[in-house]
């Protein structure tokens, strides 16, 4: 019998059962889609970081900066060049073009190390001429160029690999535009230097040489986020495979007679298996293609959310474009085929061992089931051990995810055992034979349903965990905002003169209680960006600042001038505690301060510290003195803001009242978790689909068990009701089990993963209303999933049940 003939026979099954076909293709496609969609999102974001990091070789070349975050002077640069150092100046600064914020990056092409500025952008004479002389030329990413079309700027040349919002131009153009003629932000150090050069510090004492970070800042910062996404993608993939497993299992069961007939007609077992494998390959390739398309659409839909999340959480710029590499297509189809193979392995194994005259029917299920449960329990135990060891030996982010994966899958593997034990107990309490049969039969079904129930358990507990984390974060964050944003108004001048005018105007107003300067110096502490704020000693801070841990009288110590308060992120990153000494790199000389306390600083992507204002100004006399917090009569705040804006002709962003700032922060928070919430919902939907298809599978194999009960006089309606009850009950039990598991997931998220990922720890809350909502959702899903098979059972012609006996099935 030829392969094509066999295939025709096998495929006829799918033609006759379109629903099953759709279910199989959909299951595989959804699994592939979620997995590859998440990969596409990660790839898009990582490509953006790589662009930002490789800009001007920041990831490859040493760098020279000025101590204390100050500007390098032109004279410092010349001194280094005249001493033989091959360095190239870069001037960076924020500016606005037609009201849009842009980052201007000025470079000096004549001294740039080869390859620093991408693929030879200004190599070649014509390119160079237009670049370093009027009318100038700028480089920008396509979306940036498009957004700035028509602006009063030199010609913009589109360069694919640049970070969003960045304009690169000649340093002459940029320094004129920023009005910083004598300043340089950093120096790129050429990869080859001559031997025998004097040290940088000897030539220019204010400057320090730092090696490239090796791994990109953004890359490591956002790693947690991507791990999170990947974990979600994998979880969805696994859940999707449950669907496929159920469908393939169903198809196999339904085609047993066909397979037997084919064997009887002379097809060898090997030929049948080959045909099944070819069929599976064809279907999974088709599903993989579909999945990639779905995945792309999903990724495109979620990308703005992801970009918002990454921007909100880490300040990471992510361009809004996805690119599809051939590798991505290949990987998508590959994962689809691999997934289908995995899901169909059991069925193929069964087909391999099938003899021509194999009796139909359920074998001694109980013994087999017991064996399987035992294996699962052992597996769960092993996984638990692996998770613990993984976490112990690797306590970082990866360890956290290993712990979570181990906990989730271990718990899922234990679920059937737990349910079986419970059902055994219930069966023992049954007083009449029908009840006893009900429980026993429920237990018998457990094997077929356990995969779907495990999928449901996973989806529910992850939902509870993530929901608890997000909700807990929201609660903590909003409470913290209320504490932290205590001033009624926040004002800022565009330059020192305007800031001075604002200060004078406000101080003359009777309703203003006090002006609190918000002045800061920015620098790197052991390579990490830190903002150092100087504060005036005031009750606003003493009463409201969200202190986590402190020495006695922290504010008194700070106002003494030799102590600092530091943010939780800074403390965790460098393992600092109250009482420790922190050495701040002030421009003139290192400045050691005592850490008086640690405060929470949620959502900040960089480190922060607070010292007394006079102490800050003494060491950083050059800080920008532009911004103030204004304490005033709250009732008058709005009027005050309007009058100030009017009187000094300020722009609309220069005066912000407290409620507007809080609203802004909340909005950032919501967009930050939008993608998590969306993926969460998708996973649950996939779990529902898995439950649905597995019940369909079961309903086909259930008839042989139901037929005897019917023959003994149980009406079909009763049988149908009981079927429904079973399903709902199992779903309810699973939902119950998901609650503690979900709380465990939430604990891992808040106590392990968040701390690693963001540098802060949130208190763990419980949200019973959320549990209830999810449990209800699970029950509704289960009821809906069970409804179709039950409805079919009720309408089943008695002859079908009778025929089961005649067929000896």
């Amino acid at each position: 019998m030829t392969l094509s003939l066999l295939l025709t026979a096998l495929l006829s099954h799918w033609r006759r059962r379109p629903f099953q076909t759709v279910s199989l293709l959909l299951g595989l496609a959804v699994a592939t889609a979620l997995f590859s969609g998440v990969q596409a999102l990660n790839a898009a974001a990582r490509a953006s970081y790589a662009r930002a990091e490789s800009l001007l070789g920041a990831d490859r070349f040493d760098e020279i900066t000025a101590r204390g975050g100050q500007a390098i002077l032109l004279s410092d640069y010349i001194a280094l060049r005249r001493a033989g150092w091959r360095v190239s100046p870069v001037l960076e600064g924020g500016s606005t073009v037609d009201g849009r914020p842009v980052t201007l990056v000025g470079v000096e092409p004549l001294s740039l190390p080869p390859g620093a500025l991408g693929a030879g952008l200004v190599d070649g004479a014509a390119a160079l001429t237009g670049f370093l002389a009027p009318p100038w030329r700028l480089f920008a990413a396509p979306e940036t160029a498009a957004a700035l079309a028509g602006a009063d700027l030199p010609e913009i040349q589109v360069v694919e690999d640049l970070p969003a919002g960045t304009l690169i131009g000649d340093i002459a153009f940029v320094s004129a535009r920023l009005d910083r003629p004598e300043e340089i932000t950093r120096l790129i150090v050429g990869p080859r230097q001559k031997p025998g050069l004097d040290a940088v510090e000897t030539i220019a004492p204010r400057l320090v040489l730092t090696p490239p970070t090796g791994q990109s800042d953004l890359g490591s910062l956002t790693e947690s986020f991507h791990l999170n996404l990947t974990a979600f993608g994998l979880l969805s993939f696994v859940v999707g495979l449950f669907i496929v497993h159920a469908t393939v299992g169903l198809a196999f069961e339904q085609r047993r007679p066909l397979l037997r007939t084919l064997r009887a007609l002379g097809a060898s077992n090997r030929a049948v298996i080959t045909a099944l494998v070819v069929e599976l390959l064809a279907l999974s390739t088709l599903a993989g293609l579909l999945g990639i398309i779905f995945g792309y659409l999903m990724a495109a839909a979620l990308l703005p959310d992801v970009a918002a999340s990454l921007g909100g959480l880490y300040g990471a710029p992510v361009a809004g474009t996805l690119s599809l590499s051939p590798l991505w297509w290949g990987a998508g189809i590959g994962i689809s085929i691999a997934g289908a193979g995995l899901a169909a392995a059991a069925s193929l194994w069964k087909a391999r061992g099938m003899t021509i005259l194999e009796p139909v029917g359920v074998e001694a299920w109980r013994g087999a089931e017991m064996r399987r449960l035992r294996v699962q329990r052992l597996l769960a135990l092993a996984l638990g051990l692996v998770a613990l060891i993984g976490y112990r030996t690797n306590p970082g982010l990866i360890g956290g995810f290993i712990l979570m994966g181990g906990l989730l899958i271990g718990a899922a593997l234990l679920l059937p055992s737990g349910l079986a034990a419970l059902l055994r107990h219930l069966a023992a309490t049954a007083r009449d034979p029908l009840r006893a049969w009900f429980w026993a039969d429920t237990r018998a079904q457990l094997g077929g349903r356990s995969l779907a129930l495990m999928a449901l358990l996973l989806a529910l507990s992850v939902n509870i965990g993530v929901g608890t984390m997000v909700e807990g974060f929201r609660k903590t964050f909003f409470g913290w905002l209320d504490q932290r944003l205590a001033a009624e108004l926040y004002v800022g001048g565009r330059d020192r003169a305007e800031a001075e005018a604002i200060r004078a105007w406000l101080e003359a107003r009777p309703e203003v209680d006090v002006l609190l300067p918000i002045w800061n110096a920015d620098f790197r502490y052991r390579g990490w960006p830190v903002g150092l704020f100087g504060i005036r000693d005031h009750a606003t801070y003493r009463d409201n600042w969200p202190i986590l841990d402190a020495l006695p009288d922290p504010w008194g110590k700070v106002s003494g001038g030799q102590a600092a308060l530091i943010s939780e992120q800074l403390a965790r990153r460098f393992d600092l505690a109250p009482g420790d000494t922190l050495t701040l790199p002030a421009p003139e000389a290192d400045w050691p301060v005592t850490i008086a306390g640690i405060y929470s600083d949620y959502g900040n992507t960089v480190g922060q510290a607070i010292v007394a204002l006079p102490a800050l100004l003494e060491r950083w006399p050059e800080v920008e003195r532009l911004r103030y917090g204004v304490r005033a009569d709250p009732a008058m705040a709005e009027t005050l803001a309007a009058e100030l804006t009017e009187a000094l002709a300020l722009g609309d962003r220069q005066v912000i009242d407290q409620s507007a700032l809080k609203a802004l922060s909340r909005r950032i928070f919501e967009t930050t978790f939008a993608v998590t919430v969306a993926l969460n919902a998708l996973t649950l939907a996939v779990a529902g689909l898995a439950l649905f298809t597995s019940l369909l599978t079961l309903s086909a194999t259930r008839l042989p068990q139901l037929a005897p009960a019917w023959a003994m006089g149980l009406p079909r309606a009763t049988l149908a009701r009981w079927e429904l009850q079973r399903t709902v009950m199992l779903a309810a039990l699973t939902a119950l089990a998901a609650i503690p598991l979900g709380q465990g997931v939430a604990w891992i998220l808040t106590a392990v993963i968040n701390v690693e990922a963001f540098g802060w720890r949130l208190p763990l809350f419980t949200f019973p209303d959320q549990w209830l909502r999810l449990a209800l959702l699970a029950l509704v899903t289960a009821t809906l999933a069970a409804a179709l098979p039950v409805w079919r059972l009720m309408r089943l012609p008695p002859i079908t049940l009778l025929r089961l006996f005649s067929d000896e099935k």
Partner: protein
Amino acid sequence: MRNNLAFAVLAVLCLSGPAAAQGYAGLGQSVEGYATVRPDTPLRFPKDHGAHPDYRIEWWYLTANLRDAAGRDMGLQWTLFRQARAASGPDEGWESRQIWMGHAALTTADTHRSAEIFARGGIGQAGVTRSPLTAGIDDWALVSADETLDQIRVTASGDDFSYDVTLVAEGPLVLQGDRGYSVKSDNGQASYYYSQPHYTLTGTVTRDGEAEAVTGTGWLDREWSSQPLSGDQSGWDWFALTLDDGSRVMMFRLRGTDTFSTGSWTAPGQGPVTPAPGGVTQTPHATHKTPGREIPVRWPLARPEKGLDVEVAALNPDAYMPMVFPYWEGPIRVEGSHSGVGYLEMTGY
């Protein structure tokens, strides 16, 4: 005239589009707005040792033939080029219209080490001052104790070499062409051009960290112009000979539709004599193949009226300068009716 290289390099660097595509021929580009070279403007010293920013191109070009304690021959090159990329505009600040380029090389019979630097003007990274006279780019410098070229100290370094030499002039400046007005083609293209070919040199050269004392002779060329070549000229061969009898001979030919050749002869204690066109007319005796090009390294040179009939040969045929704009520049030995040393520069091969 060797130093027309600078025209090429800087013109290609700074001219756009079609001009750049012409390579060395781009030097023939006419340029509006720059100061022009005129036959009736006498050179004035020490003022003319300094920069002439209104002319398009200019250089301070030193070559020297050296000998170490063991009697081995070497050569060094130190060059500072200036190019204005626009006829008007600021000379100071980031927006300066001046661009500078430095080339340095140290050549022995079997090694040739070189380095190059680019810098923009106006910020202090490169430039020339007159009082005292200094010319420099990054850490390379040509420094005089006063406003003259009578005694200079010259330093430069690359990844694998450096030198620090002092040169003392044993004779007067030599004004090339007609009192410094040097014609470059039959169409009248010209430059201001003078030399100090009478230096004796002492100092140190360092190769791979090994320093050694050297002595020798040096030849400094100064030249500036705005449009030095005619449009059809694409390369040149330039010779500077320091003969054992004390004469200093300069010869060049510009290769174009017609070959344009001229030079000068400075006998000890006398002023320069500019011979009639001719001098470099015969084909080379031998060439040296390097990847992608074939370079003449053995030349017959003749000046029958001076009784000169010599062959010059490269000390190291591999003295190719692998720069952004590559060329050949290296020490030579002179043998035949006269003996001596010298330098050879060839472009457009």
